[in-house]
């Protein structure tokens, strides 16, 4: 088993917050770790054969060929967030490389912890070389002493080569005073698979992200699942986009959104550019307290032979469903929680059990707090 992750000077509350975002400090179910606290890289290692977890700067020094991947999937001039990250003289973040044919079923954890008032910036590059398989859990959280607030600017570039697979499960566990601006994009080659899961059950001031996957290769596959709850003061502008270029490429973008008074803008865009491509976009929203769920599903096809569909629904908990469960002996709160739990239950094919459990655990915490 890989060594424990030593975290300096952290309160029990903050350790608990790290755990809730998926950080397993004892490394019982992880094969590697990257931990960045504010701008300090605390830990970076991986025990899985053929897989490297390196701090960004060190990786760039070690492999000159990484230059080809830097600001390739994501443009450095995309917006003020990418420009800010690109302007850093001391770039932070990680590079994870799964070399040809390697695989880790036990996931790598990457944790970004924001402890002080500031802008935390990271630039991550993840590469799954031909025939490799890489599973990552990325936990993002803030400490109890973050004061008036902070922001997280994160650029992530994913490269999934021929016959390779990356699953990336991101759990956000911020607080009411944090603004988060992930900017990520992925390029998938022939028969490559990219699974991206996003879970945010806790309050956050603002999240804005619109990750894009370009399915360049034949028969490449992408699946995005987002499970989010917006509490009263949260503003979440989230989405995902898939560009289907390779023959037979397919994408599925699934969102389950619940508002308890906050705003969720759920965007989605699938662009079918080649014959034989398929895409499906699904957004289901539940309004538990007056707030806003604004679903903007877009499908765009430009050739004969691309098949795209979308399904969006926003509604309330159905009284007949609640009473049906009550007739089986569940009280109203239990019945409501059981239905919400079901609503959020998106099983992701191809995700290792440890990661599915982590997603379930995040929902458990929200359920125990009464959703």
């Amino acid at each position: 088993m890989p060594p424990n992750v030593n975290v300096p000077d952290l309160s029990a509350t903050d350790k608990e917050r790290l755990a809730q975002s998926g950080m397993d400090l004892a490394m019982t179910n992880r094969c590697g770790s990257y931990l960045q606290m504010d701008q300090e890289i605390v830990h970076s290692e991986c025990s899985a054969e053929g897989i490297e977890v390196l701090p960004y700067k060190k990786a760039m020094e070690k492999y000159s060929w990484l230059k080809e991947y830097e600001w390739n999937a994501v443009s450095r001039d995309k917006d003020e967030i990418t420009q800010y990250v690109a302007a850093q003289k001391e770039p932070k973040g990680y590079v994870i490389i799964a070399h040809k044919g390697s695989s880790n079923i036990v996931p790598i954890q990457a944790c970004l912890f924001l402890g002080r008032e500031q802008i935390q910036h990271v630039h991550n590059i993840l590469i799954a070389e031909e025939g490799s398989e890489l599973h990552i859990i990325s936990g993002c959280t803030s400490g109890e002493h973050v004061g008036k607030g902070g922001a997280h600017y994160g650029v992530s570039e994913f490269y999934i080569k021929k016959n390779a697979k990356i699953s990336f499960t991101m759990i956000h566990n911020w607080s009411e005073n944090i603004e988060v601006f992930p900017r990520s994009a992925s390029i998938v080659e022939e028969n490559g698979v990219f699974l991206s899961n996003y879970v945010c059950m806790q309050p956050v001031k603002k999240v804005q992200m619109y990750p894009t996957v370009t399915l360049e290769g034949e028969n490449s596959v992408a699946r995005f699942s987002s499970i989010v709850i917006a509490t009263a003061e949260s503003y979440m502008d989230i989405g995902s986009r898939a560009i289907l270029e390779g023959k037979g490429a397919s994408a599925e973008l699934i969102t389950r959104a619940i508002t308890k008074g906050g705003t969720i803008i759920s965007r989605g865009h699938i662009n079918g550019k080649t014959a034989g491509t398929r895409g499906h976009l699904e957004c289901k929203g539940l309004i538990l307290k007056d707030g806003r769920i604004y679903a903007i599903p877009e499908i765009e096809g430009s050739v004969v032979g691309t098949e795209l569909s979308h399904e969006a629904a926003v509604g309330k908990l159905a009284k007949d469903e609640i009473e049906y469960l009550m007739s089986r002996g569940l009280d109203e709160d239990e019945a409501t929680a059981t239905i919400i739990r079901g609503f959020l239950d998106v099983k992701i094919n191809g995700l290792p059990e440890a990661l599915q459990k982590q997603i379930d655990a995040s929902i458990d915490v929200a359920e125990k707090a009464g959703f």
Partner: protein
Amino acid sequence: MLHIENLHVKVGDKEVLHDINLHIGEGETHVLLGPNGSGKTTLLMTIMGFSNYTITEGKILFKGEDVTKMRAHERAKRGIGMLFQRPPTISGLKLGKLLTAISRTKPDNILELAKSVHMDKFMDRDINKGFSGGEIKRSEVLQLMIQNPDFIMLDEPESGVDLENISLMGTAIGSLLEKEKRMSKRQKSGLVITHTGYILDYIETDRGHVMCEGQIRCHGNPREILKDIKQRGYKECMECRQT
């Protein structure tokens, strides 16, 4: 077991049940017949405690306790259970998860019970989503097996079920109602709604009632009533005002 007195029920602004009186003793199973729209399901939903059905007069006593104002889960906890004719589909909620939630203490035998009604392959399926008529009914019976109520209301348990599965349903319901026990030893009671009467080939019933236009118009031997209805239809019932 169940005693209903002078029950009047409104749905929205309209009174749909008028002066219902019904007594079902311990160990007895009654059958409720009547044309479509006569109020049979309304009566069952009212007894179960669904909030759309407002009791404006009268009362429901269950095991001697007045449950008229209780909510559905309180009635369920006291031993009232129902097999729904058209239960809702609940997206994402797996049958297995619901069964565990119902059982609370004894999830050990869930799979065994599921096998007995051929539902063991449905544990990871969303409740009722894409289920055939027969599968819906088997899922309902399975939930009742785990809930184990003392008084079971069955709303058309045979509708949508093919002949082969009617026998399976009949056996399962018979066992829920402790039909294998001697009559004097039986403690479970039931109230069955049926259109066709097929299910009565599998479940012995003690007494029949005919409902028309929100009233119970007559009582009697269930087989005789059914035979009458098969021969003459509900036309005479509609004209009959006697209760």
